[in-house]
């Protein structure tokens, strides 16, 4: 045993703990210095160069950021690789407008090409110009409006609460003392607390553990670690099965409006997109699609 330590000692690089501490101190001073320099360097933020509508036309296709795993909105069939859902249809309608063709022709010629985005990547992807627009269950908020342009809302979503059929929870009144699992970084907790208050249950004690991702949340519900799995209704469809059900489906709360997101600099594209969304709503196409895809 002792010999092992000795040989380890001789092979050990000559950085002692004391040396490490002083090195760390020096590094911290360095970082502090760099931050000052960095600030000065970054003050002139260069606006991302979004493609103009002409550039999209000469490129030959519209790059759209969509969800790949939200059934009914943006969903990529893993077998065929094909995208489907209401947001895919919206993208084709926008592409048709950009290229001046009919929607069915845009679809046939593949004038919209799709890139999968997540909640974390959709902002950066549209900023860097890798996609021209994002149509991916993106809620319009005053905060986000400061950073990006949004079309008028094409759909209004709300929060859904999934419970196990075997749990005996039949209404919101049964939620006292229960555990409601929510997604990290989501506003769900505040929305539910507000809803409980509005329903006259402000005195309920409910805990809200936050989970890193939806599959873990679904597993926590299935295994009985939480009583309720609360997320946006758009996402909840993916996790519905025979053993769970939506709690009080007719109770609509935590409304949020989805809009098509473009960069601040893409003014021409933004007004074009807004026009398309208005037309789709006016013509009843959105309502038809919501029925067709059985949106909750």
């Amino acid at each position, binding site marked *: *045993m*002792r010999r092992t*330590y*000795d040989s380890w*000692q001789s092979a050990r690089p000559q950085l002692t*703990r004391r040396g490490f501490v002083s090195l760390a101190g020096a590094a911290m001073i360095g*970082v502090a210095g*760099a*931050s000052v320099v*960095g*600030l000065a*360097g*970054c003050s002139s933020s260069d606006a991302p160069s979004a493609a103009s509508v002409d550039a999209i036309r000469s490129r030959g296709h519209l790059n759209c950021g969509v969800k790949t795993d939200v059934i009914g909105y943006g969903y990529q069939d893993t077998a065929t690789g094909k995208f489907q859902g209401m947001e895919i249809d919206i993208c084709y309608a926008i592409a048709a407008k950009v290229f001046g063709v009919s929607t069915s022709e845009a679809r046939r010629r593949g004038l919209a090409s799709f890139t999968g985005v997540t909640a974390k990547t959709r902002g950066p992807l549209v900023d860097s110009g890798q996609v021209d627009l994002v149509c991916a269950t993106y809620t319009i908020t005053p905060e986000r409006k400061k950073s990006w342009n949004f079309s008028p809302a094409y759909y209004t979503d709300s929060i859904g609460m999934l419970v196990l059929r075997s749990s005996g929870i039949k209404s919101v009144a049964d939620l006292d003392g229960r555990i409601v*699992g929510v997604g*990290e*970084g989501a506003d769900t907790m505040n929305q539910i607390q507000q809803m409980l208050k509005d329903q006259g249950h402000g005195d309920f004690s409910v805990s809200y*553990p*936050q*989970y*890193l991702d939806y599959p*873990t949340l679904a*597993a*926590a519900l*299935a*295994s*009985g*670690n939480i009583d309720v799995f609360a997320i946006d209704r758009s996402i909840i469809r993916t996790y519905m099965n025979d053993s769970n059900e939506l709690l009080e489906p007719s109770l609509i709360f935590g409304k949020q409006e989805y809009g098509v997101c473009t960069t601040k600099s893409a003014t021409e594209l933004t007004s074009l997109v807004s026009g398309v969304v208005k037309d789709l709503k006016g013509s009843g196409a959105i309502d038809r699609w919501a029925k067709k895809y059985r949106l909750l």
Partner: protein
Amino acid sequence: MELFNPERWAATLANTDLLWQGFLFTIEVSLAGLLVSLLVGTLLGVFSTTQSRVLRGISRVYVEFFQNTPIVVQVFFVYTAGPMLLQAITGAEHVVRIAPFVLVVICVGLYHGAYVAEVIRTGIEAIPRGQMEGAQSQGFTRVQAYRYVILPQTFRIILPPLANQALNLVKNTSVLALIAGGDLMYQADILVADSGYLQGYIVCCAMYFLICFPIAMLVTWLEKRSRAPRKARRTATAGATEAEV
């Protein structure tokens, strides 16, 4: 470079209440987990040095199982299957939930117990066989020989690797974040998810460092002490008595 943005740093540092809460939780889980791992490890470590084939077999299988499967899988399995298994065992009407604290103390304790068992085993094996024979020839029973002769000497040899295990144990408690456990990593993740500022992770790292660095220094010190030649150990006998108390 948003990482150096002073406003984001200010916003993050103003919101460290929950991080400190997680910091304390992590320390509590670590201490309880360490206790479990020492109990399990000592028992199995002694098992693997006995002459009983069965006890040696139990210890071997246990150690190999826990050393060769990831702790994340173990935690996830206990988290998802545990409540239903407990329901089946106890015959309760509903699933029996396991508090995240208890769950991770058990998982981390059992996982590191396997490593502690190996440390103890090698420590005991480092004591010359003559010591046991000598003790027994003096009328000590086997248990007494372990208690008064072998283990006190083992103690000094195994302290550095044990402290190393404590260090890894602290870091492994961060799996709590996956099951919404309320530890330091969980709180940091929420802070980052809510604000979108990565600074929360840096503060989180600094807090883990605050726990781990003293342990790392302890390891270095113990190693130095354990390497010292026997005659230079001023408190060799004191150390042995200490171990006995």
